[in-house]
């Protein structure tokens, strides 16, 4: 007997997407060896040992012959243990232990334990999307991540728990149980975090509502301990529930980062990285590129507490994601792209000493330095600035606290406002007012004669840049959307004006 060859398809995770890798197994007579080629990293090379043990422990044969496994394309580096399953099945097929024809339209992804059980892998959703797009009919994945893979329509997902079971399925001796996708619970936001938990702070609540309605980035200014984090955590719950496609994007990211629960993520993410985070930690990177915090917050909220304390490098790295809603990470000759479209909520103190009002002892130089650190790409993209105040103790415990807003009623208004924006923005590519760039803002936000005249004098009075002008227009548009008005009124413009970032020049002197 001469050589027997088997070729199988598997999918390797790259960023949050996957690319096809063909596993070729060649078995021929000779001294028993097991060679693995095609730029494998350590984890892939070690898969030889896992495959050997798993096959033997599953009551299958490991051929005592000369085995060569090639991972094609051979010029791309392969990393991680997700090739185990394809290699093991390739060996089975090449040694005639499973039929080869049924494998022709299958793709396989999975890590093996020595006992032959299948372990969870990252990026099952990305693998399913990739396999469907490449025209495969079936995807064999570990049982634990099958529901996640089954979210993809147009490909049959088989949940496999052990290698022995897989052999039975391939021989047709066993019909795999159909996998149910769990895409049903969409729209139920976290009930445990409600805006009504927060007493007072009506200014911040109003700003959060506008931020949610228009997808605007927000800066909260106030003393430490006043509740900035508490408020920011409640933003995801007043955002509209994610659409199925958005949920799928979030799931794909979380699955690629190894944080997925094997099922659809139905809540908008909230990420609050500490200010000591590095630039790659924030936007993604590493020798095997993993998504950064801004990508993990995709379609949700990225909270940057103590914004001036973040390193210059980290803040600068946020420029691209904030402007384009995506990040490009360079790795060798390859460029990976991560989605990164999140609402940024930043927080800072009024001054470096953070003492209230007249107790502040900061010098003009210290203030100027603090505010200079605040500036830069993040601040350029902040549409709203609001106050968070130390709530008087009496109000925290008092029973006659003013009526409190519930998240559900705010969310209803936000959804209505977003619907108006969706209808207006249509096919422009933007989903909400906060997504609009300068030209789109000026095309979309139409003002009456009176209002346009007002804006001209506002621009002169405050010496606005073009960007500052567009920002006021965007926010005013969202305020009008919240009120259900198609026309932007003078009052909307005035309110938008009050949320703008204070122009520093005179203070910084």
């Amino acid at each position, binding site marked *: 007997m001469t050589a027997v060859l088997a070729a199988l398809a598997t999918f390797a995770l790259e960023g949050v997407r996957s690319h096809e890798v063909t596993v070729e197994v060649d078995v021929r007579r000779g001294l028993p060896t097991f060679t693995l080629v095609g730029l494998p990293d350590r984890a892939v090379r070690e898969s030889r040992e896992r495959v050997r043990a798993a096959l033997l422990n599953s009551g299958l044969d490991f051929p005592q012959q000369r085995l060569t496994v090639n991972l094609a394309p051979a010029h791309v580096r392969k990393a991680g243990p997700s090739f185990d399953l394809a290699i093991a099945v390739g060996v089975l097929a090449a040694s005639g232990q499973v039929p080869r024809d049924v494998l022709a339209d299958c793709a396989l992804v999975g890590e093996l334990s020595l006992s032959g059980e299948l372990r969870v892998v990252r990026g099952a959703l990305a693998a399913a999307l990739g396999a469907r797009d490449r025209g495969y009919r079936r995807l064999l994945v570990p049982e634990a991540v099958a529901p996640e893979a089954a979210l993809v329509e147009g490909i049959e997902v088989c949940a496999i728990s052990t290698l022995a079971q897989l052999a039975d399925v391939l021989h047709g001796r066993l019909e795999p149980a159909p996998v149910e996708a769990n895409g049903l619970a969409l729209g139920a936001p976290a009930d445990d975090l409600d805006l009504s938990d927060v007493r*007072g702070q009506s*200014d911040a609540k109003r700003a959060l509502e506008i931020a949610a309605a228009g997808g605007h980035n927000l800066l909260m200014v106030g003393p430490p301990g006043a509740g900035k984090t508490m408020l920011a955590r409640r933003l995801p719950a007043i955002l509209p529930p994610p659409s199925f496609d958005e949920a799928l994007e979030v799931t794909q990211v979380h699955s690629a980062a190894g944080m997925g629960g094997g099922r659809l993520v139905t809540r908008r993410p909230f990420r609050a990285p500490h200010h000591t985070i590095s630039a790659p930690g924030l936007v993604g990177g590493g020798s095997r590129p993993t998504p950064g915090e801004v990508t993990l917050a995709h379609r949700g909220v990225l909270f940057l507490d103590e914004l001036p304390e973040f390193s210059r490098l980290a803040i600068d790295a946020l420029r691209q994601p904030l402007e384009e809603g995506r990040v490009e990470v360079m790795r060798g000759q390859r460029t990976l792209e991560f989605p990164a479209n999140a609402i940024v909520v930043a927080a800072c103190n009024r001054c470096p000493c953070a003492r209230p009002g007249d107790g502040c002892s900061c010098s003009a130089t210290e203030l100027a330095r603090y505010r200079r650190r605040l500036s830069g790409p993040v601040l350029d993209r902040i549409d709203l*600035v609001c*106050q968070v105040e130390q709530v008087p103790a009496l109000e925290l415990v008092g029973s006659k606290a003013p009526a409190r807003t519930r998240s559900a009623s705010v969310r209803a208004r936000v959804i209505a406002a977003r619907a108006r924006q969706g209808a207006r923005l249509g096919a422009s590519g933007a989903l909400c007012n906060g997504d609009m760039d300068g030209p789109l803002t000026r095309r979309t936000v139409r003002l009456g004669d009176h209002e346009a005249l007002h804006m001209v004098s506002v621009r002169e009075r405050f010496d606005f840049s073009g960007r500052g002008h567009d920002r006021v227009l965007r926010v005013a548009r969202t305020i009008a959307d919240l009120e259900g008005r198609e026309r932007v009124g003078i*009052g909307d*413009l005035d309110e938008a*004006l*009050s*949320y703008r970032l204070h122009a520093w020049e005179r203070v910084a002197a």
Partner: protein
Amino acid sequence: MEACDQCLRRSFLIAHLAARIAGLLGLPKARRTPGLLALSNDELVRAATAAGGRARAHEFLDRFDPAAARDRLDAGGFIAVCRHGAAYPPSLHALDDPPAVLFGLGQVEALARVQKEPSVALVGTRHPSPYGTEVAHAFGRGLGAAGVPVVSGLALGIDASAHRGCLDAGGLAIAVLACGPDLAYPRRHRALHERVRERGVVVSELPPGTQPFRWSFPARNRIMVGLARMTLVVEAAQPSGSLISATFARELGRTVAVVPGRVTSSVAQGVNELLRDGALPVTSTEDVLEELFGVGVREVPPEALRPPRPRDPVLNAVLEAAELTGSVEQIARAAGLSTGEARAALGRLEFDGHLVRRDLDGWERAAR
């Protein structure tokens, strides 16, 4: 361009000795230069230098070529007027030690204006409160709009606000520096230095290129005070350069005016002390104009004034609330509005000039 040989020689000698002048006083904390600059050239050299340095200083004097210096000044576009020249501000002659030459950059006519118009020196701390910043800006603006030249020192804080206010109103700004007129000190004020040069004049008794020294700051203060009819102090700690300026002004018999401050504020200690010593309290530009020109002679053009209270009752209610607190929530509650409505009113009040921004997120009543 008129500066006689003798005066030029004197000015360049001071620049030559600049680094040694502080040491010679023997008082490291000396805030004043009592009589030193009034000494003759020979006396100055004798006082300022040890044997070796003295020889070098004499050599410098011997070698000094006034014609060449004049050419260099002309080539650099510098103004240079000596105390014997017609363009020299006569009010400086009242000093014991008037600067021999005033070097300057900017508009020559500005110096002529100071001869005709009474001017005001606006001085104060380098670390003002937001209130002080706003007040200094407002006085600068009001005086500038009323056609009164505003003299200050281009320092951080009150000085800068005064210059900016004056320039914003299209007024005549005069900056007196403690270094050569071509150097922007502090460097952060490069842009302001340029604005003053374009719309007014930057002057110094030190020739171009001279770095600032400790002694040159109080020396600069005497020129500021000497140029102005009135010295107005907005926020000053105790002790401070502003108080030195006030003392100079009092010795010259010029008016010292102050903006009263909060008794709890450290930057009000100095001004309140001046008030106790009989300085004139002023609360608005009109007060200053009355003191300078008499009642009703000169008025601030209405566009430079804070607008009258809004007629709209809602805006008025919000404005009243905003005078008491910076919290949007409390303003809204006091005016009986929703937060959004209160925000809209605040935006409008700022646009109309009733309020100015303070800090990152608050407002303050605009000063008159």
